[in-house]
């Protein structure tokens, strides 16, 4: 092998055959081993793509069917929901009517009980007022007639009150006898019996009333039984 200078670069030489062989070799390799497999891969991918497209179309149809079914289900559900709502509305109205009726009945019951309690309290206050008035009157009489006469007077009153028959009552004026009531009789008994006398009325909240009404009742019960009259109990009765 000898090295020579290139004489004319446009004239081909033996390198031409080497190049033809080299390119033919590459062409053969590509055409024989690369392109067929490449084409097979492309076709397989196209088949996969077509299968995927078919699946996509099928899925789209399923989706459309599912959408239709979903619409039907939703419509049914809305219809059922409307029925349930209507039933609930009916039940609600019935419960409201029943509740109103029960509430009205309970209200009337509680109001009646409160009225009765108020009447009982008024009666109690009235008795206490009578008791205090009687004590005040007895004290005033005792100051006028003295302790001895007072004891005698008290005994006479007690005897008159405890008289079993109407015939023994002439000692007491007829007008006074007419005003004697069982409460008066009890009051006199309490007067002549030893023991403390309540100086004030302790208000108790009435059951079945709310707090405001109870407070109002307390206020009413702390008022004097007779407006403008204040009863001062004598200390002698406490001793």
């Amino acid at each position, binding site marked *: *092998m*000898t*090295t*020579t*200078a*290139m004489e004319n*670069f*446009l*004239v*081909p*030489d*033996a*390198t*031409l*055959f*080497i*190049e*033809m062989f*080299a*390119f*033919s*070799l*590459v*062409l053969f*390799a*590509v*055409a024989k*081993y*690369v*392109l067929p*497999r*490449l*084409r097979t*891969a*492309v076709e*397989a*991918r196209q088949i*996969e793509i077509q299968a995927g497209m078919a699946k996509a179309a099928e899925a789209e149809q399923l989706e459309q069917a599912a959408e239709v079914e979903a619409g039907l289900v939703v419509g049914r559900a809305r219809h059922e929901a409307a029925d349930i709502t209507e039933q609930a509305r009916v039940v609600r109205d019935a419960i409201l009517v029943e509740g109103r009726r029960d509430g009205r009945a309970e209200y009337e019951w509680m109001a009646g009980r409160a009225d009765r309690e108020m009447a009982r309290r008024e009666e109690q206050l009235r008795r206490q007022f009578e008791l205090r008035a009687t004590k005040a009157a007895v004290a005033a009489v005792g100051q006028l007639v003295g302790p001895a006469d007072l004891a005698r007077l008290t005994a006479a009153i007690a005897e008159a009150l405890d008289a079993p028959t109407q015939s023994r009552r002439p000692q007491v004026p007829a007008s006074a006898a007419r005003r004697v009531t069982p409460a008066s009789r009890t009051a006199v008994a309490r007067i002549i019996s030893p023991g403390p006398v309540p100086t004030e009325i302790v208000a108790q909240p009435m059951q079945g009333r709310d707090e405001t009404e109870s407070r109002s009742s307390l206020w009413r019960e702390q008022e004097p039984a007779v407006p403008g009259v204040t009863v001062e109990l004598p200390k002698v009765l406490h001793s």
Partner: protein
Amino acid sequence: MPTQIVATDGIGDLHHAVQLFGLTVQLDTAVSTAVTCLVLLTAAVYLHFRISVGRPRMLQVLVQTTVRAVEGSTGPVVEWARRRVVAVAITLFWFILVANWVHLIPGLSLSAPTSDINLTLALALVVIFAVHATAAQARGWRGYLRHYLSPWWLAPVKLLQELIKPVTLALRLFGVIFSSAIMLLLIDGMLPPAVAVLPHALWTLFDVFIGAVQAFIFALLTVLYFHAALPTAALAPATGTAQRGSGEERS
């Protein structure tokens, strides 16, 4: 003239001819072609064993893209001819592309084998041979000759055209790549090294672009030559060798 001096010196720098068994061989061209073949055959082996249907890699995608592009430009030809056209065009494109870029491989100091007329002429001859062989196979020998002899008074022109085709193919590619190599030699020889760095880099980038364009042009012209020589699929025989000579005449 400076141009003649540079060209003579440049040729001497570009190629290194040796005498082998009494024949002149461009050693650098042969080595560069061998490297090109090695790269392409390695890629072919890689593709052969690593082709994937579901998850193609980048090289497979690139080759498939070029294959689809070539298949789309072949026109209505019969399938076997289409496969042959695709094989020749695809191989040409990648071969010329790698050959144009092989001098960019660092550390090897190779020259582009396409800057030698031997490679480009060899490629053109192979292409022309494949075109005529495929046309004769598709049309039949009688139809193939009738294609060139009708009308008879245009036969010399057609013969001249067929003779010019490989020459133009070879000289176009050779001229562009050779001139590009000459430009690089000019830049490196006429400019100071510190100044020549930037023009050298810019021209190398342009050379990369030119190499890709020339590979595309060579493959495209090959497809066009096939397209002009082959009958259309509608008029061609069902198989390549069953009924010859019935293809449509293309001017």
